[in-house]
């Protein structure tokens, strides 16, 4: 029973959201506002149990982690934003969060964005094997990657004018960027299509008799609803036009 009702609710909401592809309409608005409300309510419940109870209250009371009081205080300082006179106290919490983020990121980004990227580029351009030098496809790729990294970096120079050779290099860099964006776009298409296939698959499943033909019934109802809405809103527009 729960599953049956659930199927109807899930199918209804799915179709409400898809109706947005046609245009903004009352069904989508309903689903959108419901989604915001439910997600907010769910977040409140999760924060209450997972953060407030499990990470703050319990460790403080049963494990004696008294220092969590400081965290709670910093959190409470955020709420001074409701009291205009002492709103500035919330800056302490901002500074705490922002300062932490700024410090933590520096060495980590050097590790993963600088060193790992540079080390991946520092490869020999030729290999020496049995028959002397060899310059194969692998080496050609290494050269191409090197050229790409260098020219794209040229594109990112801000304080020198892009003229002459630098302009040329930056232009090549732009082509590398465009290939990368095109590839990134094409690569993602597959994953996105899988999501759609998954959703449609579910809708097909719920159109069976086991679920009371939920998909079919609800689709028809929504289409009728949209038609009615279109007609009545057209009338409303006409009325305005009349005088």
């Amino acid at each position, binding site marked *: 029973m729960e599953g049956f009702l659930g199927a109807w609710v899930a199918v209804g909401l799915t179709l409400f*959201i898809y109706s*947005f592809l046609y245009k*903004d309409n009352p069904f989508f608005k309903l*689903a*959108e*506002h419901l*989604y*915001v409300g*439910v*997600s*907010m309510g*769910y*977040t409140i419940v999760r924060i209450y149990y997972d953060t407030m109870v499990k990470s703050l209250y319990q460790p403080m009371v049963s494990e004696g982690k008294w220092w969590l009081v400081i965290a709670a205080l910093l959190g409470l300082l*955020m709420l001074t*934003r409701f009291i205009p006179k002492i709103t500035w106290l*919330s*800056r302490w*919490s*901002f500074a705490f*969060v*922002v300062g932490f*983020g*700024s410090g*933590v990121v520096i*060495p980590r980004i*050097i*590790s*993963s964005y*600088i*060193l790992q990227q*540079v*080390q991946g*580029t*520092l*490869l*020999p*351009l*030729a*290999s*020496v094997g049995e028959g002397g*030098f060899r310059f194969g496809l692998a080496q050609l790729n290494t050269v191409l990657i*090197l050229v790409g*990294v*260098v020219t794209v*970096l*040229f594109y*990112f*120079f*801000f*304080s*020198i*004018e*892009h003229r002459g050779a630098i302009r040329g290099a930056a232009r090549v860099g732009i082509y590398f*960027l465009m290939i*990368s*964006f*095109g590839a*990134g*776009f094409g690569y*993602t298409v597959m994953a996105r299509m899988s999501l759609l296939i998954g959703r449609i698959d579910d809708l097909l499943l719920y159109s069976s008799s086991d679920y009371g033909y939920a998909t079919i019934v609800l689709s028809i109802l929504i289409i009728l609803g949209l038609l009615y809405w279109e007609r009545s809103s057209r009338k409303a527009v006409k009325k305005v036009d009349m005088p």
Partner: protein
Amino acid sequence: MLSGLNTRQTLAIAFLVLWVTILWVPRSADALPAPLDFEAFDTPNDGGESLTIVFRPDLSVPERHYFIYMSPDPGGEFRQVAEVIPTAHAKANRRTPWWAGRWSADFTLYQIRSTDTLALENGRSYFLKLVVKEQKESSETEIHSAVPRANLFNFSLLNNFLLMSLFTGTVFLSIAYARKNPNLFLRRIAGLDAVEEAVGRATEMGKPILYLTGSDGMDSLSTIAATVILGEVAKKVARYDTTLKVPHRDPVVMAVCQEIVKEAYLAMGRPDAYKEDSNFFITLDQFSYTAAVDGIMLRERPAAILYMGFYYAESLLLAETGAGTGAIQIAGTDSDTQLPFFVTTCDYTLIGEELYAASAYLSREPVLVGTLRGQDLGKAFLLGVVVLGTLLATAGQVLQTDVFSYVLDLFRDFK
């Protein structure tokens, strides 16, 4: 009888006899040589609860097995804690940079870590020996002792530390330089020139500007960059007297942005025009936020939409809806996976580092422009490293030498 044999046959027989003797004569356990240069010590550059042993195995005998035995007191019972596979070493060796004490390739290292069944306490002595077994024979080294300790600096990360210091120095020198020479050159960034245009258009049309700060919290640098740009945009908005709408996914970011926008209106001398609810919160959840912002776009038809900060899969859901409404769209993000979607749907896109250059570009404050110059110097340095490093790596390959790895290791990531 022997006289009938020639030299070759004699030699063959002699060889055979020798072999038989070697195989036949029963050998004592001592005949198996103990591994050379066995040492045990605290694992360097770590958080403790770990010991390392090294020794020089005889790799010519593959059927020889090496076992570590350990005991908390020298007279007590020694338990076998691990078998060491000597050939697995070559890879592991590269994990330590040369400046943090790398062992040469003929040594085998093994790291013993504290586990559920084997506890290694910091500051306590442990006694270890290495046992070699080959078929039924075995021999062992003398006992060495070592004390696991928690270290205070990870020397493997020294290159990271040096780069950090070097770059910090560069940025500060550049700022000092920019203070003295305030009119530094800055290349054009088309997307940021368009901000002015977007605000102007919004004023003309009497429609709001929608500004999104990305999906990360306040501890993310992308968000910080986005809020700083918001300050500059808010100044223009205040000057033109347009409406600004900033829907938020993170309450902390919302609070910070309220301060920033308020400050911008103050700076422009328009505190009366500031509205507290131009920054508002929707929800923490990714897709309900997206649905709501899409709804805002369709219903309020903003004249311009600015996407700054870090985005996830919602990027295209937002930007394509925005494109459908005909708004001018300017994006700026350093989330490299979402860049393709902004590039294809927005009128202008700030790519990666350009997001961090934006505040300097919009404000033209010497200090900010100075840091940008510092970033450029950093890039020039890394560009040089990439080119020279590749040449060195090639030279190393051609000359069959490992000597350049002393330089190249400086730009490898160690943990």
